[in-house]
């Protein structure tokens, strides 16, 4: 049974139709009543959505290309509407909330207003100045990133990345991901061009900021598998403690062996009869003990 049959519709890329079909089937295949049927239906729904998104891509691609040009694509048209909504944040929804406890705040009305007004200011500032503030930040940050990635030595100095700390602009999720990609791209270019090597502490710093390791798939989507691999592999592995310990252990066992053999030779030269037997037993038991200990 194809997933279209499970959903009970013909093949389509209309997301709304898929959702409608899923919703109506879901009401007779409830997760708590028919777990298996539900898993089956849900898998079909996911595949249908994926298919729809995949096939709808060509048009969306053009759109997103436009978006990429300006940092705040929807600002121009929606700004006016958004601003009006912001001015009266909750008045419209309040009647729907009849009978519901409306959020009280800590203090009196006047203070609530002050609190709310301040938040609106932040939101407004972020919107209105978006193009200006974020674009300035973009220009500044990208030029400093270019500086930091001008050569291997600078890139591998932790201090040259200091400017990324405490940046308000990096709180913005969209901006942050764009900056993240920009830096990764610069590093990838450098590593492809020169001898590949990225210092671990620098990578760790950037990773803590942009969660690169965690979002490898996003990077791969953007840069391709080979590039991401090249960068990740260029980070030298930490010299792990146990490599040295293993070496030390081998030296130690050799030394112990030598001492024991020396002891045997001395005993052999003095008394040939019982002491030989005794010492062999003794040595053997010590040897077993030591090797067991070391193996752990």
């Amino acid at each position, binding site marked *: 049974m194809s997933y279209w049959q499970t959903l009970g519709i013909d093949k389509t890329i209309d997301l709304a139709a898929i*959702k409608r079909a899923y919703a109506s089937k879901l009401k007779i295949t409830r997760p708590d009543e028919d777990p298996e049927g*539900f898993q089956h239906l849900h898998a079909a729904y996911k595949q249908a959505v994926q298919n729809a998104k995949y096939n709808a891509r060509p048009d969306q691609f053009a759109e997103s290309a436009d978006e990429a040009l300006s940092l705040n694509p929807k600002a121009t048209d929606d700004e006016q509407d958004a601003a009006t909504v912001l001015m009266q944040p909750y008045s419209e929804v309040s009647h729907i909330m009849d009978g519901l*406890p409306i*959020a009280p*705040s800590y203090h009196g009305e006047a203070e609530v207003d002050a*609190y709310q007004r301040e*938040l609106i200011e932040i939101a407004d500032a972020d919107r209105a100045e978006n193009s200006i503030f974020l674009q300035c930040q973009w220009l500044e940050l990208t030029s400093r990133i270019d500086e930091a990635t001008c050569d291997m030595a600078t890139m591998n100095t932790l201090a040259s990345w200091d400017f990324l700390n405490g940046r308000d602009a990096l709180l913005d999720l969209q901006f942050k991901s764009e900056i993240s990609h920009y830096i990764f791209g610069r590093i990838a270019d450098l590593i492809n061009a020169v001898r590949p090597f990225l210092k671990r502490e620098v990578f760790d710093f950037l990773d803590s900021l942009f969660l690169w390791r965690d979002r490898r798939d996003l990077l791969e989507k953007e840069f391709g598998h080979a590039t991401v691999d090249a960068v990740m592999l260029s980070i030298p592995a930490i010299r792990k403690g146990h490599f040295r310990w293993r070496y030390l252990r081998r030296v130690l066992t050799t030394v112990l062996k030598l001492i024991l053999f020396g002891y045997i030779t001395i005993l052999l030269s003095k008394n040939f009869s019982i002491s030989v037997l005794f010492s062999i037993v003794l040595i053997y038991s010590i040897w077993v003990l030591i090797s067991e200990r070391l193996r752990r």
Partner: protein
Amino acid sequence: MTILGIDLGTTNSACSVWHEGKAVLIPNQLNAFLTPSVVGLDERGEILIGEVAKHRLISHPGKTVSVFKRYMGTDFSVDLGKRRFTATELSALVLRSLKEDAETYLGEPITRAVISVPAYFNDAQRKATKLAGEFAGLNIERLINEPTAAAMVYGLHERHNAGQYLILDLGGGTFDVSLVEYFDSVIEVHASSGDNRLGGEDFLQVLADYYFETTGVAKKSLSPIELQRLYELLEAAKCKISSEREVVIDRAVKAQNHPFTITRDEFDRIVQPLLHRVQLPIERTLRDAGITPHDIDEVVLVGGATRMFAFRSLITRMFRRLPACNIDPDLVVSMGAGIQAGLKEKHADLDDVVLTDVCPYTLGVEILNDGDSSGKQGGLFLPIIERNSVVPISVERSLCTVRDYQTNLNVNVYQGESRLVKNNVFLGKLSVTVPRARAGAETIKVRYSYDMNGLLEVDVEVNSTGKTYHATIVNAPGDLSEKEIKKSKAKLAQLKFHPREQAENRAIVARAEHLYECALGEQRDYVSSALSQFERVMERQNPLEIKKAASQLNQILNTLESDSLFT
């Protein structure tokens, strides 16, 4: 039979039922919707719960406990009078109090309930919550994730708005993030993430550390009473800093010589590490769902701690928009639990509502780590159920023996995202016997089933013998045997609760005692004489007279409190 929807919170708890097409909140004996999750013991060895106990945190710190939700699913226990209590038992006491409130309000016995838990609660914590319900004499019909509960309230009351919503739930002790989509009465959770140890209480702790650092007061030198009072003042300051630029605390304790001033900017600076921890689960959720901030129609705030300005401004900056918080963030989760209770009752008006949820973390099993010769890394983690899989789900994987002639095979169950099991949460183990054979010849089938409550069941089948093992997970931290459960139940049954009729009067006395502790000089004498007068009236046991006296005392206390006794 009515099912009760309960929000068992770190700081406050609340409950509601589904009635006439909506979730109705149930007031407690003091006519408030919120019952502080605080348990205390009075002089006669009787149990006090809620507001009364909260007031006594200052006057009787050794006999009062709060913030115990943090210890759910652990062995942690605390002394209260002569008895020792685990977090599960304390939660059971709070649940019992809520249950009695509901029974009084509805006029019928309650035996079934839906309890909300943080989405990121692990298996042990969920089991402990369920057990607490049993201890309180409630049959737990469903554990619902807190952000999911909140999403249901927003979804049902703003039905016409189809779209994607990001629910951020910062409570007293936990932080949850859930991405939810609504369409055609379907409430679908796409992805969840969170931080089990991040909440309003952590912000308070940071502020307290800052206080000790700047004033030079040594924490160890303070008596429990002083410490409790200081924390109360700091808590008030934490709330106030959201609406004011600067808060001053003069001389909270004797050892403090100069007034302690904190500005909004300073507060923002000291909570920066906590705000950083807020960002991580949000980014992870968006990433897991494969969407950008643009795709989200609204960011919804839930939980009392989201009132903090520092938190709200961070969210506003992250999403370039104002977050929505139309319904009281303290009550929305319990209302959601009430809706879930209505769904469980199969109410006609919820007929077409369907809720789907996900498992917020990866569940897997420990396997041999071949490359680990030194034994430092430990076993590897083999995921069986991936995070954000839609639930209920059941997945099977095959495992085989690794040594020649091994007869025993341990299935160690872990939860987490790390490649190495030592960085993940150990949930329990299952031991199975297999016939002697060469390595790799014997195989077993391990099946993980994760239900709508977020509880995990493990089934193992040995292929060659056909023998099956089921869910006998032992050794989980905080796990109790049948015997221990019986013992706990017996212990809780023995406890005496305050007679309900007197609850209101007791609350007033507790409040007066609390005021007495905080006041000085003249005011202190005033409170003291007013209190003794009230107690004399109470002894005469004339209900009318007591009622009158109570309202008088209440007025006195109100005036005193509004005289900015609490800075």
